[in-house]
């Protein structure tokens, strides 16, 4: 049996029930609980730990490639925009690489932002968030303020067991 867990993947599949829904009127509207992908292999107690490991591993990736934790934990009070900008550019590049390498995105609602759109009958409120009062039955007319993001594909690494994920970046000592 493999010492590898798909916790990383599970963390994200947990966020993706909407992908299967697609505006079907008869579809139950509540997000489904995450599919127990590794339930046969892991006890419920360790499932929570795997979720945590997945989150920590993603953080470790963003730190390793993009120094994201360093950046967010640093104080920007009193720093010049130029100094912040120069660091942010590198942090952006590294974190962007992590996103590009591991996930594909698409807008939930394609179309120009600030344009008029129609919210169809049987829409999924988990996918489209209505702002303001809806009168009567859908379809609703409105203005697209944010097109939303949907992760269409995740290619996250598998994680070996027996590695302390809380150390997202080891201390480094040059000899």
């Amino acid at each position, binding site marked *: 049996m*493999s*010492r590898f867990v798909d916790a990383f993947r599970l963390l994200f599949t947990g966020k993706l029930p909407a992908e299967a829904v697609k505006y079907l009127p008869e579809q139950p509207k509540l997000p489904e609980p995450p599919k127990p992908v590794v339930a046969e292999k892991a006890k419920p107690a360790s499932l929570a730990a795997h979720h945590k490991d997945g989150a920590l*591993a993603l953080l470790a990736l963003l730190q390793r490639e993009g120094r994201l934790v*360093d950046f967010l934990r640093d*104080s920007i009070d009193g*720093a010049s925009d130029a100094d912040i900008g120069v660091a942010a*550019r590198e942090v952006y590049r590294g974190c962007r690489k992590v996103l590009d390498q591991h996930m594909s995105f698409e807008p939930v609602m394609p179309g120009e932002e600030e344009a008029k759109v129609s919210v169809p009958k049987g829409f999924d409120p988990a996918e489209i968030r209505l702002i303001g009062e809806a009168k009567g039955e859908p379809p609703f007319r409105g203005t697209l303020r944010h097109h939303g993001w949907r992760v269409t594909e995740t290619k996250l690494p*598998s994680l070996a067991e027996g*590695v302390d994920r809380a150390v997202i970046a080891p201390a*480094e000592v040059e000899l």
Partner: protein
Amino acid sequence: MKIIGIDLGTTNSAIAAAGDDEPARSQPIAQVTGPGEVGERPSLPSFLLLPTELEVPSAQLQLPWSGPLRYAVGTFARERGAELPHRLVSSAKSWLCNPSIDRTAQVLPFRGAQRELDKDMEGGERVSPVNASARYLAHLRAAWDDANPDDPADEQEVLVTVPASFDAVARELTVVAAREAGFDKVTLLEEPQAAFYAYLAARGDDWRKDLKPGDVVLVCDVGGGTTDFSLIEVADDGGNLALERVAVGDHILLGGDNMDLAMAALVTQQLAKPLDAMQQRALVHACRRAKETLLGPDAPKKVPIAILSRGSKLIGGTLKAEISRDDAEKLLIDGFFPVVGADAKTERRRAGGLREMGLPYAHDPAITRHLAEFLARFGKMPTAVLFNGGVMTAAKLQGRILELLRTWAGRDVKLLGGTDLDLAVALGAAHYGRVRRGKGVRIRGGTARGYYIGIESAMPAIPGFAPPVKALCVAPQGLEEGSTVELPDDELGLIVGELATFRFFAGSTRKDPAGELVEIGDLAELDPVEKLVPADGDHKAGDLVPVRLEAHVTEVGTLELWCVARDGRGRWKLEYSVRERE
């Protein structure tokens, strides 16, 4: 049975698969990408990290198909290895064809003679160049098996590519490495030919519109660490187009990594503070990206380079520099691809007395001079060019080479395209498997070199003078796979119970027929071949057995030399001796 094509590269390896009715496609490779983290990447960096438990805990190196491992290959090996250079094996393939060391001895990571005795360097595993190559192949095999549990790799037809410049010994060692990795049967294919097969696969039947009889195609392959040239000639074969590989260049240890380092050196001058090892690595990565931007289409006037501070405080500590397009073009295009005449010769620095043992890196960084020298040796200018290798994706580098080829030839030189320059070799190898099954046109070529055995002239002994040695051609250039050459009877003898050692030579420019006795001249000496014929019922120790030689090019693509007793009582295969030589 599927076909698996493996590009066992100097800096990156890749794998592709094809079937009878499936065109070749590349296979992503699972590998350790971070501590305790396994991800898929399109290729496997050819780096082997051999740390101690204190340097990298083995739990961080396990793979989905393994327990905790004491070594890593691939992305994490390369990245972590930059911080542990004394534990990192790189360019194993270049060591595989370096006769100045014993390639089956555990000499890697290479330390140099002085550090070999250093107490501080103890710990950590050492491997031979053959072992290192075997680790890469074994990883590719396991990753394939994990992704394709129904089609285990060792039950498929496996093709492994080698540089065209690999001599008979390096080819044999590649087969040994494959066997060590669990591939009992592989077939070798030259990399530039594989790149050409990828082009044929990509173009379908349209390649017949690109090329006509009389065309000569230059395959110009510039990878991370090596540069390789081959020429493929198009001929008319009873109305059909036939392809023949007519020339291969030398193994040149020069490539994209040299360019990244040159750019990094340029940037370092601009930086206020010295960089540590990890920042230096970040700088080289940044330079590679800048190179790709500045040599690509629509390049900006300059590219900023930022190196983040080493500690956890980022803001205010970032080092800044920039590279202008003009500087990059001057450094990279004029430095590595200068405008030279067709008669240019590479500059050879004279070795100043003792030289540190190591890889024989090219002295002259000008790839165009190496190219001019190669073409001059062949004496014919190409009519078309096919680029390969990550470096050649840069539009401006392609442009410079095309411009020079057109000037040298005094006419147009066509650019062949349509291949993925990073994965073409693996894809082409898989496509070649289909060609071997009768699905497409095959490039003929045979052995790239002619092979010779040193024969001492029979003459009266003179004190202080070694008898002059001449070279007997045992395998002429262009010997096809599966063919055997029997040499006419010569006065050769093996002494039973004693190790017989023959000097062994190769040449790529001469067309001597088998059995010809020639001056050594410009032939390159390879590792010697040897045989110990043990005494047995037929042969008593000390007997002289008259033999004749036989050369056989195997279907695998390796060269075998045999001694056959003239009385028919025995035949013995000569072994390549890869021990260290004086």
